[in-house]
């Protein structure tokens, strides 16, 4: 990752914000490393946008401290914070051209006219809109507007960039493309970026680290990989990916599902009530019966859904719990697919067996 030498780290300490009885932000603390691409991920109402607005200065928290580098900015008004920001609605000024919009922050900073023209064109080229300066906003497509918004946010070379669900208004194909472009932009410019989204796939694709937010609290802050493989609580495990959960309990050193002792590579949390997280793609069919060294479950197939690139198998365990299994479809295996009513064995390796604290579930 390219770290521009003057990108700033962000230090959030004990920020709280209540609206009446609702805790929009509940004693939130967070360190964003300089040059990092950090995503705030969560459902709507989780507080992620509120936190971003606090960083930008539009929402004043009840208490807490915020530092950009060494500078305490919690009481600094938004127009003096020197952060670049893009809004969900782009908030482009319709009464100005593209160049007018992108040049606005430079005009505010009394940059000489000639320099403005150069820098505006440079910014537009960076977002692949070179030469678009004369266009009116209503002549642009959604994707183009999004890029102008980004150009406007970076033209004055801020050291921190904030983005509020920038891609949510775009259709899927454009969104996937823009994800790559934004990530590349980040690599090129290197500024510290805080990105808000509710789309977990987007977060997993683009981020250096992700902070999962719910009810105004950070549930887990980790790299995409750690978040996916080792969720630290039920909310994160449930929010990322699609999993089934089985209640299991601790029995001394062992963890048991019913009578069955589970094999797990990663240590389980030190609690009595736990959950076994089963990711559909991490559990497989064992056509030759139970596999040694793995966790095996006997089940009856209840539903089999062909989804083109994969198939989804729903089956019921002996005690009534349902498990979903996803497998790749191969031409060769099509004939060997189980059908409804078949008795099958499902198998999960001990590396793939993840146990989570059951509280808050």
């Amino acid at each position, binding site marked *: 990752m390219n770290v521009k030498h003057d990108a700033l780290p962000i230090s959030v300490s004990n920020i709280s914000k209540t609206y009446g009885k609702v805790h929009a932000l509940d004693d939130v603390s967070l360190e964003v490393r300089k040059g990092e691409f950090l995503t705030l991920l969560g459902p709507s109402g989780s507080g992620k946008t509120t936190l971003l607005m606090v960083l930008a200065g*539009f929402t004043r928290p009840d208490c807490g401290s915020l530092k950009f580098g060494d500078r305490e900015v919690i009481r600094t008004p938004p*127009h003096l914070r020197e952060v670049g*920001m893009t809004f969900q609605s782009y908030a482009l*000024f319709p009464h*100005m051209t593209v160049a007018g919009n992108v040049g606005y*922050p430079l005009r*505010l900073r009394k940059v000489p006219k000639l320099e403005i023209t150069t820098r505006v064109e440079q910014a537009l080229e960076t977002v692949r809109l070179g030469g678009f300066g004369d266009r009116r906003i209503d002549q642009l497509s959604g994707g183009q507007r999004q890029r102008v918004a980004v150009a406007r946010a970076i033209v004055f070379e801020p050291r921190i960039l904030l983005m509020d669900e920038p891609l949510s208004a775009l259709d899927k194909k454009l969104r996937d493309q823009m994800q790559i472009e934004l990530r590349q932009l980040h690599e090129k410019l290197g500024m510290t970026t805080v990105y808000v989204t509710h789309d977990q796939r987007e977060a997993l694709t683009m981020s250096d680290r992700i902070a999962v937010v719910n009810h105004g609290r950070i549930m887990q802050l980790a790299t995409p990989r750690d978040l996916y493989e080792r969720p630290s609580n039920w909310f994160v495990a449930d929010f990322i990916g699609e999993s089934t959960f089985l209640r299991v309990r601790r029995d001394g050193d062992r963890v048991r599902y019913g009578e069955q002792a589970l094999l797990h590579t990663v240590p389980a949390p030190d609690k009595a009530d736990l959950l076994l997280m089963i990711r559909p793609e991490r559990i497989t069919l064992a056509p030759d019966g139970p596999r040694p060294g793995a966790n095996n479950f006997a089940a009856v197939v209840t539903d089999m859904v062909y989804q083109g690139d994969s198939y989804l198998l729903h089956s019921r365990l002996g005690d009534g719990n349902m498990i979903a299994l996803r497998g790749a479809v191969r031409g060769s295996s099509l004939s060997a697919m189980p059908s409804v009513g078949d008795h099958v064995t499902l198998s999960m390796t001990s590396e793939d067996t993840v146990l989570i604290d059951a509280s808050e579930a």
Partner: protein
Amino acid sequence: MLNWLRSPATDTQISHGQRLWLYVISVIIMVLLVTPTLIVIPMSFSDSQYLEFPPEVWSTRWYQSYFGSSEWMQATRTSFKVAFLTMLVATPVGVLAAYGLHASRIRFVRAAFVLMITPMMVPVVLVAIGAFYAYVQLQILYTVTGLVLAHTVLALPLVVIVTGAALKGYDMSQEEAARGLGAPRWKAFLTITLPQIRFAVVTSALLSFLTSFDEVVVAMFISGGDNPTLTRNMFNALRDQIDPTIAAISTLMIFVTTVMMVLAGLFGSQKQKPKQ
């Protein structure tokens, strides 16, 4: 024509023919709404004392009578002066108030809004005699200042309502974006928000002007002496007898209103070329 009469006018398959009575009545009503106002215009050119229509003899004698009278001219000057000043005072005061109420989150916002609407709800007569008494105490009776202040108070509700409605439909995140880019709130308002509520602001200015220009009851009490307004003199003239000069003045007033509206349309138009 017959085909049209038989064709359906609504989804419930009522034909135009069955609705003919509605069409006829509506046209008659609209004509009755518009003509009395407009008919004054040609009648003002009638030579006769009784303002015939159509005028048997065309003449501009009533216009000459108007322009030739120093009293009428003085009153006209006063009315224009007061209306312009009212527009200049009421518009910024009202726009700022509307913005302040829109952006502020104090509990009293509702109460303040109701207070701003009060001049529209209280019978004008009360406003007039109240102002009369107050002005006697403050010794600004019969002054332009007094008139402007009173007319501003009458115009404020209109400005606040019109501007407030425009602000409600406006995307405030643009102003936030401007502030994030480095503009303090007042600059963001002036460069980003104001240009986009231009139409409402110009309409408010126009309404303020017209409110003052047309105002009769308050002017009846607090204008006079050196500063009677046009409407005050017109009203007094009407009480006495039907002075045909008033037809000429009315026509000119209609003309003034039309000009103002055209100007408002030009200035307030949203289709201006965007800035670079």
